[in-house]
């Protein structure tokens, strides 16, 4: 039985679906191997509209592989990813790109850097593959730029942005896809505290106002405690704990997964995780 069997309705039903297609992301028993060595061993989760799911675990536990299996960048050897009960493997890559937006760990560009407007316009690719962009595409891009408060950077080189700005631009690109599911691979890594809060506030705001389903790989457990509705902890490709954040981020689970001692205290109106 899924570890989320008894908790999935906590947030899923409470947020109205505002736009997009998907209100339920259901991952069942995902297995994945690299060259014969298993990376994921039957990972499952369920997330509803408006919820933020934190994916936690030590390095090499399979978090990024798991996220990539959800949007079919990698093809799992077993298991299924259901979007509103539709199997993702039955959905074309173009259509899937309209449902799932992906924000990679590194805001890398391998060739000459485009400007911010062009980066966000790439999010319109699933909607218009022809050579010319339409007025609707242009409007959608400006809406997303303004929503993420990066419209003043539109003509700047993407390579010249700060880490926080580039993360926001990449989230704007994912929004330009009109995707209802957002997969974020360590959105706060390499960011200072101010930008961490800024990016996560943005993500939280989107989940609350737009009803986006968010799956975010996080390393900072206190950030997860602060922003995530649910958390799944991975170790060696297996789930060690899963459920509502306050129930999962306990000193026992943290020690079992990471091998470090931690304390969870209620300070200034919320639970905080402190590594001892």
């Amino acid at each position, binding site marked *: 039985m899924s570890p989320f069997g008894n908790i999935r309705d906590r947030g899923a039903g409470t947020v109205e679906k505002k736009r997009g297609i998907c209100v339920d992301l259901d991952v069942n028993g995902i297995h994945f191997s690299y060259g014969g060595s298993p990376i994921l061993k039957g990972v499952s989760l369920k997330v509803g509209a408006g919820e933020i799911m934190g994916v936690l675990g030590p390095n090499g536990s399979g978090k990024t592989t798991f996220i990539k299996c959800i949007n079919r960048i990698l093809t799992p050897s077993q298991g299924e990813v259901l979007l509103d009960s539709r199997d993702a493997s039955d959905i074309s*890559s173009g259509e899937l*790109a309209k449902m*799932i937006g992906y924000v*990679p760990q590194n805001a890398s560009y391998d*060739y000459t850097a485009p400007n911010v407007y*062009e980066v966000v316009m790439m*999010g319109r690719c699933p909607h218009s593959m*022809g050579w010319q962009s339409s007025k609707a595409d242009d409007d959608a891009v400006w809406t997303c730029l303004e929503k993420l408060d990066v419209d003043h950077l539109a003509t700047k080189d993407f390579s010249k942005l700060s880490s926080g700005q580039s993360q926001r631009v990449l989230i704007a690109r994912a929004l330009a896809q009109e995707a209802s599911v957002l997969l974020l691979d360590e959105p706060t890594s390499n960011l200072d505290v101010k930008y961490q809060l800024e990016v996560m506030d943005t993500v939280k705001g989107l989940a609350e106002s737009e009803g986006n389903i968010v799956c975010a790989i996080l390393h900072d457990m206190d950030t997860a405690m602060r922003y995530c509705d649910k958390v799944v902890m991975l170790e060696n490709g297996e789930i060690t704990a899963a459920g509502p954040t306050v129930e999962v981020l306990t000193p026992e689970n943290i020690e079992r997964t990471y091998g470090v001692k931690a304390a969870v205290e209620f300070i200034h109106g919320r639970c905080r995780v402190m590594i001892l």
Partner: protein
Amino acid sequence: MFSKDIGDLTEREKVVRLFARRVIFIIAMLVVVASLAAFSMTLGAAKISAADAYKGLINALFPDAFDITDRTVRIMVNLRSPRVLMAAAAGASLAMGGAITQAILKNSLATPYTLGVSAGAGFGACLAILMGVSITAGTIGIITNAFIFSMIPVAVVIVASRFRTMSPMAMILCGVAISYIFGASNTLFQYFGDDASVKSVVFWTVGDLNNVSLWNLSYVGPVMTAVFIAGMLMAKRINVLGMGDDTAKSLGVNVERIRMTGLILSCLLTATVVCFTGTIGFICLLSPQISKVFVGSDMRYLLPSSALVGACLLLIADMGSRMLMSPVMLPVGAITALVGGPAFIMLLFSRRKNMTGIRV
């Protein structure tokens, strides 16, 4: 909007202005290429005035329009116009091949030449000239051989990628390795060849426009047009490849298919040119880099502007090759490399930081 100071513009106006500037650059380059081609028609060993040269061209289309000698018309139709038109078409084609290859392989040094097209063509020509091994005899045999062998490296990459996924770097290294094999074989054949034949091979390898004919353009023109249209249709997907394969896949792009299609198109286009002209260097490497400075990396603007910059460069190099030691015609391939090399180094170390996208 253009009269406003940049500081007074809204971001939307700045974006519109940016794209307008790119379009203006392309239109300006179109005018420059047309002007260079028109001027180039007036140059040559034969003493023909500019006015007579144009009259000769018009007479070729509308006989008896002007009172011009048949000799002038023949020179314009058989010598100058094929040369000038081929210089423009070959320059544009080589540049487009370079722009597509660099973008799909995410490497500013990658060109169809790096992938082994030129070495393959050289080996094919060498086989025909030195060993007489070709499907047909004479010049056609050399051209056919050059074309077939120039497509071998890309065929190897396609076959290899069916057995295992190849990264862009693996594709480039595969092409480099095949280039070495062809180069070494070419050297061995030349080692045992007679002097006259070896000289022919060397002349062919350098690349020039002395032997082009109008019928060559009936092959280069359609292939160039088809690749341009396909490139423009694929442009958005090629742009996304620059952000990484994972991002491209997450945006619904079939990365392997786009990469393979781009590779085939760029190599086919380059092979079509190279089999008629020999290996004209540096155009495919330099033109996209120059264009990027003016229009950025968006393939929708980079492809046409690279084509026009390539045409412009080869037209200039061709004029130089004809005029530097007139009436001796130097091989244009040597001129492009001699001028292109320093120009590329200047661009690379230019004070405009990262203007080519290459980190130095």
